[in-house]
């Protein structure tokens, strides 16, 4: 007997698949929707992510405002350094600092309206690239000049709302008075300044000088921006030359290729979380796909049995139905990709308004390919098991009663194929998403969730069986008995519901708990003893008086002060930073300029964990105390050395001790605290904290800013609001992505119930024929769905809590607290959702006319 070749089998398979598909896509709608949602979500998020990254790269010049920028803090560059920079092209200087703007009347009297502003002083060449957009367009530089005793200024609209003023109003900043000529609609280089706490106030350099705010040690950052004469000049070569010629310049050099690294990191992390949420939607959808394939093959069992009886080989059956499934999958993936390519383009104008970075809208091939690959792999992974059953089940068994096939393990070849597909999904996930650490943990978490939920569904079915067979445990009411029995009957949708609802809910709980913990942390991060204000830029000779003055104000309970300088770490143990592999979570401490201080005594809220604090009268070579977790992350220990560039001078200090710090107390603390000797002589300012009763804060701000015009006040509440608002946007985006996951979960749940609708309708009719009332059947269904929803919710809360704990504790390093209200609400939501979806899907079974069904059988 001759067997058909593989090619012949394939040809035959195509022929049969085409014939079967002629009857339409009935029964494939859930399959298609799951695939469209999952693939679409990954494609949309991926396209947006690539568009943003490309936008940031292509728009590097306007984002940075230059081809290359040299910036220093506290001081301006010397002539030799500016001369070196000027060689490369046109140079523009920008200065940024914080200040307190106070509204004045036309007569020059100060009002009580005042606010923290981010001052940006620009010259005539600003911006070298891009365009500053004002509400009333026109040449802007002349309008920043001085007219009478008023300097011109532009402000962001938020400052006007905050100070309750309109363009034309007068504000004072330090010793200078300004008239606000216009509103800034778009500042091209805003994102390169990182997180800014207050609204922008743009002035001229001359005006900045007139404010009197620039003093030795003031927190002013001077940016020297270059528009290269030779556009193709090698930026890396310039950076190297700068480092070689001025090794102690202490400048931060940024090029157009990495204009806003902070924003890029933030967005990359955000899109990673969003992509993983999208992938979860696809994996949950996978359960729906598997279900749809199983019930599709169940409906086709007579066809399969007939084909087998007529001589179709198992291989032909497998090829036919695999082709059919893949054709439908192709359709779903194509629609998902179409959405992924088109929606970002359509939504670009709105997204652009929400994001502070430019987006380069285009059809991005790579994310679409990735989404398609995920779609195909997930479809194959979830279809192989039911396909193996159709292939391996004998025709005689397929012809027998309507009962669902018993659990059958696929053959070894199928298990290997399933494992290979899963391995490919894992490999693709690790390759497609940037952060291996988070992605790896995500994969472990989702695999464990899968195993736990599959185990749970088996446990529910086993327990329900034991429960209803035990005369002792069996419930008295027939309704409860039937409901429990429905959980374990052959073909019961329990595994699909538990898996789909469980994965969706687990993610939901994780996000809800992370959301609550972060919000709580930010709110409770202002404990009673925490200061209400940080006052910056207090000069050496002012600090004592300032502290005494603030201490005497109404409501003030405590003040504290610390010297404050800015410095950047250059070397560790004499070797440049690039030679060290620093843990990503603490890399911020070694990136750019950081606040540093010196102190005779161990700062409050710190505890020595290694080494010793220096004696009060210590006068030897520089010593430094490091925060232990930062030192550990960089592999530093007591006795090692650290070289820090402070005001253009390199200071090498030996690590004398490591400290554990309670950052949450918001008391003054620094990563690096130096011994006083070396730094005391350097020009620097002081930081003063004021702890007070709420209610007198506005009064204090008014009194202090009247008397000390050059001092900058940061209200903790305002700073936290700024962080909160940023975090709020992040959580909103993640919540939006997770809602796709939840919708997929509901779809899979509905699909699982819908696939058993014919059976349920039949059962309901027979039960009604033998005396069950519709009310009783409604109760049976409600009990069944409520039980499933409740048990699944309980485990989802457990999985979600573990997930949220891992994120809060290990990734965000925050204090963890469990929220029973969130858990309870989730459980109730899950129960309501399961009952509602269950009844909505199966209502037809309850209302079916018995006679028609009984006749049809």
């Amino acid at each position, binding site marked *: 007997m001759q067997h058909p070749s593989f090619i012949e089998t394939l040809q035959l398979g195509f022929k049969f698949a085409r014939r079967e598909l002629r009857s339409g896509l009935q029964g494939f709608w859930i399959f298609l929707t799951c695939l469209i949602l999952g693939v679409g979500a990954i494609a949309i998020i991926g396209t947006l992510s690539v568009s943003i990254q490309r936008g940031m790269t292509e728009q590097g010049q306007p984002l940075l405002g230059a081809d290359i920028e040299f910036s220093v803090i506290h001081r301006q560059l010397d002539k030799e350094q500016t001369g070196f920079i000027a060689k490369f092209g046109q140079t523009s200087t920008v200065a940024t600092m914080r200040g307190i703007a106070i509204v004045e009347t036309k007569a020059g009297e100060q009002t009580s309206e005042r606010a923290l502003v981010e001052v940006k002083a620009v010259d005539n060449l600003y911006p070298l690239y891009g365009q500053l957009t004002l509400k009333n367009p026109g040449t802007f530089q002349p309008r920043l000049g001085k007219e009478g005793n008023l300097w011109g200024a532009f402000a962001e609209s938020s400052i006007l709302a905050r100070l309750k003023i309109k363009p034309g109003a007068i504000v004072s900043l330090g010793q200078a008075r300004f008239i606000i000529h216009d509103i800034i609609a778009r500042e091209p280089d805003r994102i390169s300044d990182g997180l800014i706490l207050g609204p922008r106030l743009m002035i001229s350099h001359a005006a900045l000088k007139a404010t009197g705010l620039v003093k030795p040690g003031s927190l002013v950052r001077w940016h020297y921006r270059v528009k290269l004469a030779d556009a193709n000049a090698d930026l890396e070569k310039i950076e190297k030359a700068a480092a070689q010629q001025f090794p102690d310049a202490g400048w931060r050099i940024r090029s157009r290729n990495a204009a806003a690294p902070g924003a890029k990191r933030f967005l990359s992390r955000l899109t990673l979380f969003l992509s993983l949420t999208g992938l979860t939607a696809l994996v949950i959808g996978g359960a729906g796909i598997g279900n749809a394939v199983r019930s599709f093959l169940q409906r086709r069992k007579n066809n399969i049995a007939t084909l087998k009886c007529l001589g179709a080989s198992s291989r032909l059956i497998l090829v036919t139905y695999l082709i059919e499934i893949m054709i439908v999958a192709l359709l779903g993936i194509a629609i998902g990709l179409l959405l992924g390519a088109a929606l970002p383009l359509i939504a670009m104008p709105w997204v652009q308004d929400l994001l502070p970075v430019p987006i380069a809208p285009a059809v991005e091939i790579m994310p679409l390919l990735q989404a398609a690959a995920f779609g195909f792999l997930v479809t194959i992974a979830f279809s192989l098991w039911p396909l193996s059953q159709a292939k391996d089940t004998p025709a005689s068994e397929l012809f*027998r*009663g*309507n*009962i*669902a096939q018993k659990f059958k393990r696929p053959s070894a070849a199928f298990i290997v194929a399933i494992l290979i597909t899963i391995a490919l999904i894992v490999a693709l996930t690790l390759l497609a998403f940037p952060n291996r650490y988070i992605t790896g943990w995500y994969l472990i978490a989702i695999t464990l969730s899968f195993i736990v939920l599959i185990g749970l569904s088996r446990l529910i079915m086993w327990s329900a069986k034991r429960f209803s067979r035990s*005369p002792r445990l069996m419930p*008295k009411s*027939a309704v409860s*008995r*039937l409901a429990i*029995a429905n959980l374990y*009957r*052959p*073909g*019961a949708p329990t595994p699909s519901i538990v898996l789909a609802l469980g994965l969706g809910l687990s993610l939901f709980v994780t996000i809800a708990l992370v959301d609550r913990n972060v919000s709580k942390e930010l709110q409770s991060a202002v404990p009673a003893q925490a200061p209400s204000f940080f006052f910056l830029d207090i000069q050496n000779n002012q600090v004592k008086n300032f502290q005494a003055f603030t201490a005497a104000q109404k409501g003030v309970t405590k003040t504290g002060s610390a010297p404050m300088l800015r410095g950047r770490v250059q070397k560790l143990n004499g070797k440049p930073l690039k030679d060290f592999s620093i843990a990503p979570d603490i890399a911020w401490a070694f990136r750019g300029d950081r606040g540093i201080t010196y102190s005779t005594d161990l700062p409050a809220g710190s505890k020595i964990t290694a080494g010793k604090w220096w004696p009060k009268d210590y006068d030897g070579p520089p010593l430094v105390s490091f925060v232990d977790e930062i030192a550990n992350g960089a592999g530093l220990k007591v006795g090692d050395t650290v070289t820090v560039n402070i005001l253009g001078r390199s200071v090498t200090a030996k690590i004398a001790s490591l400290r554990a710090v309670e950052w949450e107390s918001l008391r003054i603390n620094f990563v690096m605290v130096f011994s006083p000797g070396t730094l005391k002589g350097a020009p620097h300012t002081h930081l003063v904290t004021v702890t007070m009763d709420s209610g007198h804060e506005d009064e204090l701000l008014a009194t202090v800013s009247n008397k000390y015009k050059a001092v900058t006040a940061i209200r903790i509440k305002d700073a936290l609001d700024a962080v909160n608002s940023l975090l709020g946007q992040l959580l909103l985006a993640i919540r939006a992505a997770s809602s796709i996951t939840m919708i997929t979960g509901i779809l899979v749940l509905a699909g699982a119930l819908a696939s058993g609708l014919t*059976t349920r309708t*039949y*059962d309901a009719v*027979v*039960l*009604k*024929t*033998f*005396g*069950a*009332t*519709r*009310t*009783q059947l409604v109760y049976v269904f409600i009990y069944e769905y409520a039980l499933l929803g409740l048990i699944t919710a309980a485990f989802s809360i457990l999985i979600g809590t573990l997930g949220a704990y891992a994120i809060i504790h290990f990734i965000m390093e925050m204090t963890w607290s469990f929220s029973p209200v969130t858990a309870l609400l989730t459980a109730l939501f899950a129960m309501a959702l399961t009952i509602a979806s269950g009844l909505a899907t199966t209502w037809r079974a309850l209302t079916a006319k*018995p*006679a028609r069904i*009984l*006749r049809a*059988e």
Partner: protein
Amino acid sequence: MSSSIISLSDVKVTLEAGAGPVEILRGVDLDVKPGTALGIVGPSGSGKTTLLMVLAGLEAINSGTINVSDHNLTKLNENQLAAFRRDHIGIVFQSFHLIPAMTALENVAVPLEFKGTPDAYKQATQALDRVGLSHRLDHYPSQLSGGEQQRVAIARAMAAGARIILADEPTGNLDSETGDKIIDLLFDMQRETGTTLLLVTHDPSLAKKCDRVCEVRDGLIS
């Protein structure tokens, strides 16, 4: 109180079909005394099954009156009809109509459970024992032969103590030998319990075993 356990007067049933309304029963009158075995014969499509459905309250009528066990079925709503069937009627179908996902024992226990019988499973076990299936309690319908499935259906119809058994061609899906055994079982149980049996059949020899035979033709009883 009527002396008839079943009383139909001028019952008409019209069903909507694709090609328009079809008159299935066109004015049926029927009286059946308690304990009677009534054979209902007639050609396919004559309305025999519809007549049984009407008697069970599973098919609504367009006009006429139906009294079964002192219940005017036209006055009962869906839930009351279900309760009526639970308390008074047992049905045996040609295609058994067992619930595939329930074991034999669970299938038989269903009407007892809905009746609130405290020892539903015990009584269901006894009923299965009476039909000779005490060794098949935990088997699912797909694991039973056709004859065994029909015996489960008979046990289910009898288990809750129904006074009326409606049997719609109970041997139609069985071979003759098994069919004979099923019919013997049905009649034996009917006699033992004194129930009223309405047996729809094509088989004249089977009909002859009944106390009385009526023929349904073109929606009328002759």
